[in-house]
Structure formats: C-alpha cells, structure tokens
C-alpha cells in the first residue's frame, strides 16, 4: 500500500480510537448573544476495553452560538461522533453561576466498544457550577449523568434486546482562563463510572482529560460575561 493511503488509514484509526468522548470543556457561562465560540480540544481517554487500562487520543472541535444571555447552543465533533448541547443559565449569585446542559450525542465505535456496540448514542444532563476568579477565569465543577445506548446490527435488524443500555454518571473539574483578550485555555478532567443496565454491574472507570483552546468570533459590546 502506498504511504499516503496508509498514513490516512493510520490517522483514521487513531481518530477512531477516541470516538467515544465524555469531555465537554464547557464553562458555566453561556456564549454571549450574537457571538460564536470556537474550541479545539486535545483530550486523552483512559479506559479498559478488555486489555487492561489503555490511553487513547481524542481530538475534537466545537462551535457554540449565543442565543440569549442565558442560552446558547453548540455542536461538538470528534473523529466519528458528534454531540449537540445547550447551556441554560439557571442561577447567578455573585461569583457563582449554575448552568444546566442537556445533551444528545452519538458516534460510531468500531474499536473502542467494550463488547458488541457499533453505534452508540447518549442523552443526559450536565450540571455545571462555575466560580469566577478575577475578571475572566472560571473554575468549573460539573456533575453529569448520561444514558448510553449501544446499538449493533442485530439489535437494529432482528432483536432489539441485543442492544446494550448503560448509565454513565460522573464528574468533572476544569478551569477556563484567558491567555489573551479573546483566547482562553480550558484544561479539564472527567471521571465516569459506567454501570450496565443489562445486569453486568459497574464497569471499569473511564478517565478523560485534556486541554481546549477557545476563542470567540468577536467581542461582546459590554463585559464578556455579564450577569443576566
């Protein structure tokens, strides 16, 4: 095989290794109205596919659009998966902000599936607690709970009981801080403990960590993240 196709396949497989993503790199502050926020994330996953703990890469990109001061909408894509979410600002007290993030995602999982999944879909909620430090730095502590459905051809075509349901609760901690007027870095660590709803109990914990670089399309007319 020529080098270029082989390299392409290599990159595709590397990407496919990380097509299950649990990070968010989301602060508790919705994107301001009229602005578009971009994020490039370089994450790694530590999970157990049956061979013991392995580290897999997970590059991803996201865009978010500010709709109101308390509502935005975003899409996040990685190698073979995508997730849509919306940040809904619920509460702000001084330097504390509480935001709810419903999310819906899906992905193709040929290599990272624990067992017999081919396509996975998740639906869940993130609860983000943001603590503002200084003028633009935000520490984010999150709790999440997702329901994950792993589908395969047998489940789709023949017997839906071949699908695997699981509950994926977990938590995250991250900090978003500015490196220039419009550019932010966002390191984040996520820990999840999947639990099979098929009677197989708790599975090995999943760790995802990495750093995102985020920037906005243009400055807001007022303070970047003004209170509602």
């Amino acid at each position: 095989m020529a080098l270029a196709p082989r390299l392409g396949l290599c990159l595709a497989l590397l990407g496919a290794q990380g097509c299950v993503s649990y990070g968010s790199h989301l602060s508790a502050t919705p994107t301001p109205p009229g602005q578009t926020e971009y994020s490039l994330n370089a994450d790694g996953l530590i999970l157990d596919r049956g061979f013991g703990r392995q580290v897999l890469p997970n590059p991803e990109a996201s865009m978010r659009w500010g709709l109101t001061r308390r509502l935005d909408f975003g899409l996040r894509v990685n190698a073979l998966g995508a997730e849509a979410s919306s940040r809904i600002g619920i509460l702000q007290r001084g330097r504390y902000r509480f935001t709810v993030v419903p999310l819906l995602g899906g992905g193709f999982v040929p290599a990272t599936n624990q067992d017999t999944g081919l396509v996975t879909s998740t639906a869940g909620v993130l609860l983000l607690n943001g603590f503002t430090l200084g003028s633009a730095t935000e520490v984010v502590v999150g709790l999440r709970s997702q329901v994950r459905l792993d589908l395969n051809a047998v489940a789709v075509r023949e017997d839906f009981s071949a699908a695997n349901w699981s509950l994926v609760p977990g938590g995250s901690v991250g900090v978003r801080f500015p490196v220039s007027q419009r550019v932010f870095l966002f390191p984040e660590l996520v820990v999840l403990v999947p639990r099979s709803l098929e009677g197989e109990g708790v599975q090995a914990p999943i760790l995802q960590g990495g750093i995102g670089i985020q920037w906005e399309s243009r400055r807001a007319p007022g303070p970047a993240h003004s209170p509602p």
Partner: protein
Amino acid sequence: MTTWFSNWRAVFRIAARRRAQAAAGLLCASLVQACALVENYDDPDGPRYAAEFAPRTESAAGPLAELSVCSFNIELSEHIAEAIADLSGDEHLRTCSVILLQEMDWPGAQRIAEALAFDVVYYPGSVHSGKDFGNAVLSRWPILDDAKLILPHRNPSNGRIRIAVRATLGVPFAPITVYSVHGDTPWLGAAGRLDQADAVAADASRLVGPVIVGGDFNTSDPGSVDSTVERFTSRAFTWATAAVPPSAGGPLGKSKIDHVFVKEFAVAGAGTVASDASDHQPIWVNLVVLH
C-alpha cells in the same frame, strides 16, 4: 414575552441552518439500518463436510516423536491453487501432518485435502460473499471425532457468528485434539474477542492429552496479543508461535494475528512463509511429543 418569542425564533433559525447536519445524522442512521445481517449456520451440528484422502500406510501408523502443524487463513478460499503450491512446495509446510484452515468453503478445503492426500473435516459458520465461510482441519491420520464450536458474540456490523472446529486425530501414540479457530475482527470490541479466545481455551483445557489450538485470532489491536496469549498460558498451554514474525497484512502493516497454542508438546521450531495466496501467510510449528 416578545423577547422569549424572539429567542425561540432564533433557536428555530439555528435549527433550520443545521438541517445539513441533521441530514448527515439521518444518513448515518440509515447506514445502520442498511446493515444487513449475514446468513449464519447456527446449528452446532452442521452443516458438516468430511472426506478421506489420506493413504492408510505403515509410515502413517508408525511411532511418532515429532509432528508439524500448519495454520493458514486462505482469504475467502480465492487462491486455492496458489495455496496448494505453497503447502506442497515449501520445505517447512510440506512436512506438516496437520493443517488448520480458515475462511474456507468446502470445495476449497476438499481440493486442498485431495491434492495433499489428507483427511478433512469442514464446518461453515456463515455465508460470506456468496460462499460458505468456515474452518477446516486436514490430517494425515484418521479423524476420529469432530465438532463445531460456536463462539460467543456476533459481529456488531452484520451479526456474523464465528466458529472453531475441533477434531480428534488418531495418531499412533495417543489421540491428539486440534482446533482450527477464526475469531472476529476488531468490529467486535476487544472484550468480545477475548471472550471468543476464552471460550476456545476453556473448551480445550478440559481435555486430557495433547492439544493443539491454531488459527486466526484477529489480535491486531495493541494489547490484544498479550491478553489472548494469557487466556491460554494460564491454562497450561504454550504459545508455540511466540517467536514467529507477523503473518497477516493490514492497513497499518503486518500484524501478529495467527497463533498456535499447544499443550503436552515441546516446541522445536516455528515460522512463517511468504505467500501470494492470501492476505495471511501460513504459519508452521514443529512439535515434540512430551510423553
């Protein structure tokens, strides 16, 4: 109220602009819908095919101290003539008394057995590309007993089952049991493929006497070789092909996915031979019986 209405209009405008993404999502979903299930042979008793071509000579029944075993995944049984040339021409392969074949149909397995004068037993597990897709055991000694093992799990993309073929061979000193194994591809997750290897190892470990397990275990992803080997070595098997170089081609280069595990044998030699008959190379092992 007006503000909220405007906000929701904005949401819907966003949604409309993203119809392209939604269409892409639907396309993905339809691809999943289009994943047709393959035809499997779920009956553990068959279909079964067998034939006898081995001559019943004095030498075949003589005392036995050593024997050679080959394993060869002949891709979809497409290049049988080239495979016969390899198996009969190479100095290591032509000494094999037992040949374990994968990705076979019955005409291909029968043709090889007849050309090399072996007895043969063959079970298909499913249909692939319009032909039966299964495993065969070829032996210079009589095949006394045989069975088809249906391995756990089905392929996530098409529901294909995988099988192993077990055969007990009437060698002069004592019966030997051999397995021809073909595990699933990485479409099935790592844990699922380990379950398949574990099923074979568990079945083989229950047997008394010498055992040989060989075939294509599809251990192409990092970590899977060690984990698969551990399933056998923890049950008193020796990894006979530990020193054999990678024998199968793949998108990232050659992989070590064909293996032979033995019990109650010492390994005198092992290797692989270049071949144009398949995307795999045949592997061989020379074994010494431990009395």
